[in-house]
């Protein structure tokens, strides 16, 4: 069966969601993953969008985080201050999705700058909601293509906390969320080990450990039980292609 890297990452991300999860959704692949999960194994998924929309039922593909389709038919709308306090800081969000220009060995994320902060080589968009989502959502999932430049051993700038330097460094800060629980790439899935280090936990069909290592900036370990992810189901691909993103904007 033919499928794109984006479809593969979306479908594998959808599988990580549980029914009744409250998810802080971002546009692009996270939005597709959540809507796919909601139409398959997680019908009671509650989708919250950073713009302040709770229980969204988007009738069309949202093209920005504040797309009007998110509001029409939603359960509630609130201010930005409320979405970050009543929902996220208070601990009402189960899952947050994140991306990043750089993700390091301990799941720390950089979306701020490449090079020196005050004299940036490449200025990236910055945190947006990423800093607080990474800290306060119960579980975080990261979706990103597996490329060497995206997986350095250390990020240039800690925009959002993973497990910091590993060990109990994150726990010691007292932040409420459990941190990154999986990084879904086009080659497989990385998960934190007991020390908070991202290790290869699964490979997608036809992908190899060598490929993953060649695209990772640290000596990649394998999880004790390495899995191969099931190939995307035909029905999942149909929903993505026919219902969710018929113009193939993100997939």
């Amino acid at each position, binding site marked *: 069966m033919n499928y794109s890297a984006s479809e593969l990452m979306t479908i594998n991300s959808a599988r990580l969601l549980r029914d009744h999860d409250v998810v802080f959704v971002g*546009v692009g692949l996270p939005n597709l993953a959540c809507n796919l999960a909601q139409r398959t194994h997680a019908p009671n998924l509650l989708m919250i969008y*950073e*713009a*302040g*929309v709770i229980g969204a039922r988007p009738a069309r593909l949202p*093209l*920005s*985080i*504040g*797309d*009007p389709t*998110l*509001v*029409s*038919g939603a359960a509630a*709308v*609130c*201010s*930005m*201050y409320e979405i*970050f*306090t009543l929902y*996220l*800081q208070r601990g009402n969000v189960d899952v947050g999705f994140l991306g990043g220009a750089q993700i390091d060995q301990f799941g*720390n994320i950089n979306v*701020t700058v490449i090079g020196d*902060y*005050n*004299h*940036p*080589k*490449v*200025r990236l*968009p*910055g*945190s*947006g*909601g*990423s*800093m*607080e989502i*990474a*800290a*306060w959502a119960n579980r975080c999932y990261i979706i990103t293509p597996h490329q060497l430049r995206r997986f350095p051993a250390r990020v240039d*700038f*800690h*925009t*959002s*906390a993973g497990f*910091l330097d590993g060990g109990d460094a*994150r726990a010691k*800060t*007292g*932040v*409420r969320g459990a941190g990154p629980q999986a990084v879904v790439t086009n080659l497989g899935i990385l998960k934190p080990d007991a020390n908070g280090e991202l290790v290869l936990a699964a490979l997608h069909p036809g992908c190899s450990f060598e490929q993953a290592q060649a695209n990772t900036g640290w000596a990649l370990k394998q999880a004790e039980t390495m899995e191969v992810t099931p190939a995307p189901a035909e029905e999942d691909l149909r929903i993505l292609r026919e219902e969710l993103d018929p113009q193939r904007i993100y997939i």
Partner: protein
Amino acid sequence: MTKLTTLSEAIRQYVHDGDCVFAAGFTHLIPFAAGHEIIRQGRKNLVLARATPDLIYDQMVAAGCARKIIFSYIGNPGVGSLRIVRQEIEAGRLEWEEYSHFSMISRLQAGAAGLPFIPMNQTAATDLEKANPQYKRVVDPYSGREVIVVPPLNPDVAIVHVQRCDASGNAQIWGIIGEQKEAAFAARHVILTAEEIVDEEVIRSDPNRTVIPGFIVDAVCHVPYCAHPSYTQGYYDRDNPFYLAWDKISETPEAVKAYLDEWVYGVKDREEYWQKLGEETRKRLEVAPRISSPVNYGQY
């Protein structure tokens, strides 16, 4: 008391060189017409504050209006990089002050609430805190643990676009309500732009929907389609193709200058701009009605 005036008069009166300006709206209701009028009037050295500078500040920076930008996400939402702001920062030509969304909005909340600072829980990510000295830590006197604090943001002027308001500035918004209320209460002056100016009785028929009370408003301007290429919920759609087009336009200074010449300096006001957009674009942005069920306030 009527505060009705033209947008050009409101900008002349309440936006001065060097001011801190907050053009409100998280993706929704961004007052582009006001940004364009500021450009036309040639304001300089502004401090532009918004969580997401969006294309409105990219254009104002391109036109030379800004000295500094205060932000929490400099991307072209849904598209990618916000090229001009990014280039100016990389080149060291634009000062910047950076937050996360939550700390940016907390600053506005503190400003709106008259607080000296506002606390937030720690996030374990400390690099931005180190880079921006406005972030501080204080000890929570109850638990003894440290919390992060930021100071209030009190812009000189907030510009807020709304679906409808009356002539004295009692304003109603629906859809994404971002930070409009906080911006209005935090600012020293408030300029409202509205899709519709309605009778006071319309506002009073649904007081729960009023986000900004007229007594904190300085100027009320009737500016239909003010938000394009952003949108007004229920009135017109977001012009996503334009957000993509800007990505291309903003690749070269020549294309940016040509855009500003044609669409900002080359038009007198928003009405002329909207007509110039053409029938096809206007048609594409039309939105079918979806009416809410009325509520009963009761006759007491």
